[in-house]
């Protein structure tokens, strides 16, 4: 069964909405779980790059929509992160939640660095050390903490929408 077309945007929309409107009012103003990054990375691990790239692009655009930064920046960063994360697809440990958790942590750090770099190319002032210490790394830790739950949810969806083809021997 193919993944329904509405599912990625819907899930990513909810994730982006939580990330932009729910977590900040809980006091997570500088560091918060990067749910969109987490979902994209885990989907890349579960389904590979071919399905993760559209997720990354859509998720990035949603993040751009809710943010005040230049439009397309988060999309570009997330597409690159999804591409790099999809190396976990080949891993034999992908059914274990530990691998996605570790990948999510490093992917979130990479996404943060990449996003800051892209902002800098748009002439935005960037305090590298302070942002890394107070925002990027704590956000990556939050994201890694959320990864098992997101992995559990997405792996269920993945199992239901897995393509099973009959093979004749």
């Amino acid at each position: 069964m193919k993944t329904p077309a509405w599912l990625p945007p819907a899930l990513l929309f909810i994730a982006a909405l939580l990330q932009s409107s729910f977590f900040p009012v809980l006091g997570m103003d500088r560091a918060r779980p990067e749910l969109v990054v987490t979902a994209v990375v885990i989907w890349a691990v579960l389904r590979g790059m071919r399905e993760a790239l559209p997720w990354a692009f859509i998720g990035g655009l949603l993040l751009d929509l809710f943010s005040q930064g230049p439009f397309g920046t988060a999309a570009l960063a997330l597409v690159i992160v999804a591409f790099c994360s999809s190396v976990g697809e080949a891993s034999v440990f992908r059914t274990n939640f530990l691998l996605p958790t570790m990948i999510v942590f490093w992917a979130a750090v990479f996404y943060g660095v990449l996003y800051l770099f892209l902002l800098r190319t748009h002439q935005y002032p960037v305090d590298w050390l302070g942002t890394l210490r107070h925002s990027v790394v704590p956000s990556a830790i939050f994201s890694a903490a959320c990864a098992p739950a997101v992995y559990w949810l997405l792996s269920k969806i993945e199992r239901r929408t897995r393509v099973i083809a009959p093979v004749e021997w």
Partner: protein
Amino acid sequence: MLIRRRLPPVTSGAPPSPLIWLAIFVCLSIAATFLDSRHLLDGPRSAVMRLLGPIQAGVSRVGQSVNGVTTGWSEIGRLRTENAALRGTVEELLQETVNLRASELENRELRDHLRYSRENPTRTLLPAEIIGLDSSALLGYAVINRGGDVGVSEGMTVQSTAGLVGRVVSRSGNTSRILLINHPSSSVNARIQGSPGATGQVLGQPDGRLIMRYIPQAETVRVNDIIVTSGLGGAFPGNVPIGRIAHVETRDVDLFQRAVIEPFVNFHKIGHIIVDTGFIPAKL
């Protein structure tokens, strides 16, 4: 024989290389950035945000509610600790206030004593402190912390800076028992200040009041007249203030007038007193 095997999801036709997909999405992202830098996406972006705004506001409100609940729970412990600390502080401050007030009263009384002693240089005055006061109206005694060791003896007058308190009725080495003038068994010869002929007896009442009896009918007695000891009988020295007339009872059929006296001394708040050790009562 058919077995089921997991296959990667595939699209119909020959799938493009992953790198081509990557290139496509990177190009789309860069295009979006370029269009945004030219402000070509401002309109669609604001239109979408106008639609999403209420949803965002709703999610934010839910977040605020959740935050309120979690903050409330997490603050309970802190508030309890803070409350306990504040209670401790309040108790300490209360204790400090009580001590300061007591010191202030003591200071005021001692200053009054000093002033009184200076105003009465002919008298030998011994300051003392009341260390026990009978709470019932049946036993109107007070105990002071001076006794025979420092020259206190029976019959000596005890007064405060406000007025007459009583007299010593018994003593030990370091304490003495005082009969207060508002006790029913107390009787003090007194007069109305300014009227030499208007004499009487000030008697204590069971309810703690003072009544002046045996005031001759011929004398004019007014409310607020000052009552002092007359010195008659030799039990008390003369001219020690007792109180002020609060009410006068005059009846034509009676031989004498009667007056209710408001004492100058507040018998419920006596702290420091003075024993007039220079006055020896006459034994008639």
